[in-house]
């Protein structure tokens, strides 16, 4: 039997004395999409950032494609990988940030092409071709030569998505991809993510867009206070939540 694409095993994360994740386990199969929802500070972003080791978990393990992620076994003990080994693994996971974080000294094409060139060793010509294809995918073909500062927030985020796609990742992580956007720009980004989901890409999506989560995800996790309060298919969790905390959260967020 083939291993699941992603397996999160009893993840704990503390910042000093503050325990942000208190034992989270989850599994994602290939082609599946999990949405993580919950109030601010519930640990959902930290969970996502632990998956590709942007944060190092305090305890617990991540497995990508059956392979231990971010750690290696030496003499029967798990130790953190070197940065070089970690970089090779991270290249398999695309990440989209709330704040876009496009590189301001590079135009859209170079933002997308630089990792294929410098990480995967593609030629400039190959990388540019890939970049232009990925920018077309996010409907940004008309802006390949623009620098980030000349793009709207929604356009920047779409370039950032193209940048992650250019890694040809096994898994995409979205960390509140529309939370920093003006309301009128949210739609264009959600549309792109929806199209990617329809292509059968595997993704974990942290979001406040409940209706979107319901549309796109096949599994929803509601987190509160560092643990998973309840999880299940979107129609159950969003349509018919069992826990008071989930209900009051959804009521609050859907009223707006």
């Amino acid at each position, binding site marked *: 039997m083939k291993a699941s694409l992603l397996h999160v095993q009893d993840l704990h994360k503390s910042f000093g004395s503050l325990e942000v994740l208190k034992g989270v386990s989850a599994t994602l199969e290939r082609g599946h999409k999990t949405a993580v929802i919950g109030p601010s500070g519930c640990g959902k972003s930290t969970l996502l950032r632990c998956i*590709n080791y*942007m944060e190092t978990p305090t305890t617990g393990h991540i497995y990508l494609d059956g392979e231990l992620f971010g750690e290696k076994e030496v003499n029967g003990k798990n130790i953190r990988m070197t*940065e*070089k080994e970690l*970089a*090779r693994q*991270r*290249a*398999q*996971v*695309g*990440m989209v*940030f709330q*704040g876009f*974080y*496009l*590189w*301001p*000294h590079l*135009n859209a094409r170079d933002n997308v092409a*630089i*990792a294929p060139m*410098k*990480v*995967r060793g593609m030629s400039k010509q190959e990388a540019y071709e890939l970049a232009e294809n990925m920018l077309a995918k996010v409907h940004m073909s008309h802006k390949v030569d623009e*620098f980030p*500062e000349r793009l709207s927030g929604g356009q920047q985020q779409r370039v*950032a998505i193209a*940048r*992650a796609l250019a*890694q040809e990742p096994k898994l995409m992580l979205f960390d509140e991809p529309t939370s920093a956007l003006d309301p009128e720009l949210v739609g264009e980004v959600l549309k792109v993510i929806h199209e990617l989901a329809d292509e059968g890409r595997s993704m974990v999506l942290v979001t406040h867009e409940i209706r979107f989560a319901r549309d796109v995800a096949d599994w929803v996790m509601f987190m509160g206070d560092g643990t998973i309060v309840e999880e299940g298919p979107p129609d159950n969790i969003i349509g018919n939540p069992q826990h008071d905390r989930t209900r009051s959260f959804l009521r609050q967020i859907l009223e707006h």
Partner: protein
Amino acid sequence: MEFDKILNLGGPLLLGAVTTVQITIAALIMAIFLGLTFALVKLTRFRALHWLIDIYVELFRNTPVLTQLFLIYFGLAYLGFKVAAFPAAIIGLSLNGGAILTEVFRAGLGAIHHGQREAALAVGMTPWASLRYIILPQTWKITLPPLGNYAIALLKDTAVVSAIAAPEIMFYARNLVTSTFETTLVYVLAAALYFCLSFPLARMVERFERRQSAWQ
């Protein structure tokens, strides 16, 4: 008559100008190297090194460069290390500039949002690649104006190394004054020479800044 005089004085002064330029370039390169290295070390977790760098920066920023030069030139000789004036001048100005530029680069690196690095690591760059392709190009742009100003200040401050008899413009100027008694003329010529070196440099820095601001 006056013209002949200028020609006779100009030769040695031009010779000094060559040394001035050599010292400036060498000290600038070393200072950039030291400043950037120390600023990068301050981004690592080696606390003890932070401490040493802080001490170095504060010592060199809070004492006159003339005093530092004397300490290097005469102090080292006292300890048995005889250093010639020319290398001593370069060492002194490099160490002094390294302290100034450590702060310049530290501020420049600090001005870059941590998300820039995170995004680089997320696409699979190593910390080194992230520094090389993402962080340093942005730091360079931010630090270029203070770096340019430092280079101009350095060029003029090389005058101070005449105090340890490094054969630059002011060293020759003082010798010429002693031998010819043409005090005013000699110093006017020296000033003109500094101006001719500094002014184009300032314009160059300005142009560089303008070109760099094409993005942002």
